[in-house]
């Protein structure tokens, strides 16, 4: 009975993700985030992987929670062999015993990776380092912001944006505010108290990161709690933006790679992950995506390191225990729905 429920659920999720072509023996199915992220995965990882192994890669696009839902629905026979996913949901998958442990012996670049990139029991490995920070339009914001609470500056009334809790930045901004106001991960009262007026005044509670592109472009907002990597790509396209890491510390975002349990192509999956972790792969992705690398051998160009979290910004960054996040997010989300977004 349970397996039939899972099959049905898998079918529903598969429909939601778009039907994939039937997998061939030498085809690896990789779940990745859409937009420029997928483009960069193709350019930096898939091309090299296909050249080295002769195998091909089929991309499935979605967000972290969609992948987590799909892996759960697959229940041991997943329709993806490697997934890019946020670390908190990777922990959730691991807790549901649906993660295939990574074998460092099969990863030639394992030794080049910073030690704390590895998940518990090697159930995943961090693929890149990004953050939730402040992004602003220097034409509208004269002095670079320095604190999360600069969003509350009356000068930006109605001209700032924060994310909904369903997006990483929304959650992280809430947690950052909470920490600022003396709260802990067990007590979010101060955070919720502080965010309510901010959410009310926000031009939009964005649910898709790229929603902000048009708002920045039209000058509808001047400043937002957003992602430096998205800002970097947008700046390449000509948008007037700048990134500021608040003095209270930005919050780290750690997209990881993980192999869902039951993948029929564990060997090939390891080879793909090895490509992702290689210095070449990391450097390529970082340069294109304005994102921090986990390979110790990578040195970022000035242009990228100006935007991506490095140096002092990286040192002061808050990395939240993903296990706590996995357990708390549903409760926080419900509270948000009822108290903030109502």
């Amino acid at each position, binding site marked *: 009975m349970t397996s039939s*429920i899972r099959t049905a659920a898998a079918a*529903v999720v598969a429909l939601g993700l778009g039907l994939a072509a039937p997998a061939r023996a030498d085809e690896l199915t990789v779940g990745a985030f859409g937009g420029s992220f997928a483009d960069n995965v193709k350019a930096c990882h898939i091309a090299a992987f296909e050249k080295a192994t002769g195998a091909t890669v089929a991309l499935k696009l979605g967000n972290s*929670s*969609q992948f987590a839902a799909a892996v759960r629905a697959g229940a041991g026979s997943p329709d993806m062999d490697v997934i890019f996913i946020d670390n908190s949901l990777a922990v959730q998958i691991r807790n549901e015993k649906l993660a295939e442990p990574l074998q460092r012996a099969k990863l030639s670049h394992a030794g080049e990776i910073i030690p704390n990139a590895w998940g518990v029991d090697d159930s995943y490995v961090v693929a890149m380092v990004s953050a939730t920070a402040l992004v602003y339009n220097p034409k509208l914001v004269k002095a670079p912001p320095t604190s999360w609470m600069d969003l509350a500056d009356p000068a930006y009334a109605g001209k700032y944006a924060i994310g*909904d809790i369903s997006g990483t930045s929304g959650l992280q901004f809430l947690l950052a505010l909470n920490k600022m106001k003396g709260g802990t991960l067990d007590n979010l009262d101060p955070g919720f108290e502080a965010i309510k007026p901010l959410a009310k005044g926000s031009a*939009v509670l964005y649910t898709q990161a790229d929603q902000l592109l048009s708002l920045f472009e039209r000058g509808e907002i001047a400043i937002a709690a957003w992602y430096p990597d998205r800002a970097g790509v947008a700046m390449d396209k000509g948008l007037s933006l700048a990134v500021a890491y608040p003095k209270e510390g930005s919050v780290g975002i750690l997209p990881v790679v993980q192999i869902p349990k039951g993948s029929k192509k564990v060997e090939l999956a390891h080879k793909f992950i090895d490509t992702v972790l290689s210095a070449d792969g990391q450097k390529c992705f970082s340069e294109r995506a304005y994102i921090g690398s986990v390979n110790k051998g990578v040195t970022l160009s000035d242009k990228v390191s100006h935007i991506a979290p490095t140096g002092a910004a990286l040192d002061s960054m808050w990395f939240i225990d993903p296990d706590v996040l996995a357990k708390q997010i549903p409760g926080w989300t419900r509270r948000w729905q009822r108290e903030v977004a109502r």
Partner: protein
Amino acid sequence: MKRHGIALAGPLALVLAVFFLAPALLTLPTGFREYVPGQGITAGSWTLDAYRDIVSDDFYREVLWRTLGLGLAVTAICLLLGYPLAWMIARGPAQLRMPLLLLVIFPMMLNLVVRSFGWIALLANRGLINNLLTDLGLIAAPVKMMFNLTGMLVGLVHIYLPFMVLMLVAAIQNVPRDVEAAAMTLGSTRRHVFLAITLPLTAPGILAGSILVFVLTISALVTPRMLGGPTYRVMATLIYDEYMQMLDWPTGSALAFVLTAIALAIIWAANRVARRWAVT
């Protein structure tokens, strides 16, 4: 026995069973499982927690009422806009019929997301309408038309109006002109003919169109996600979030079942009313 019955019921029943009933029934047991955040669904568990939460939580109740209210409002607006439109198509000048019908059907051929984006372009704070009103000096600050009732009503009415109109066109075309003429010769004014004859005779179509629009509205997901956003939630977006964001499938399943049960109850009640009105 069971197999025999299915064979008799024919292909339509099979399609309904596979695509509607089966998923609904398969998700039903999930609603009685325990969910532990960070750990997942507890295998073999059996609890009424999800349903108890729905009953006791005023947020769920609010969203449920909002969803039903939205369904009623969209249905009522579709009916009020759709009836005159259907009338024009069914009875209007011949040269108007085709263009009007095409105008009504055309949006149905466009992707839902595309249409919603169209409305976003129109209704956003810096959208066409607000820009126009601002440029004309009619308003100082943008009028909020998205992520609230207004945007939702506009978007949903636009999507479901064609369904209502097509149902009503068929119903109006089914009213014999002689029957209306008979009423006129018996002393009915145009107004009275409409109220005493046309309206009751099109009632089955009105009811069918209303049920269709109502059920489609309360189960709509894409448009509420795009035009309602995170602040204006309805049951469908709530269920989606429970499933896809919080991974709390038991709660999502329980909410889905409550919505399905209410939809079925409304269809059942409407059918009873329709049978009373039924005219052969």
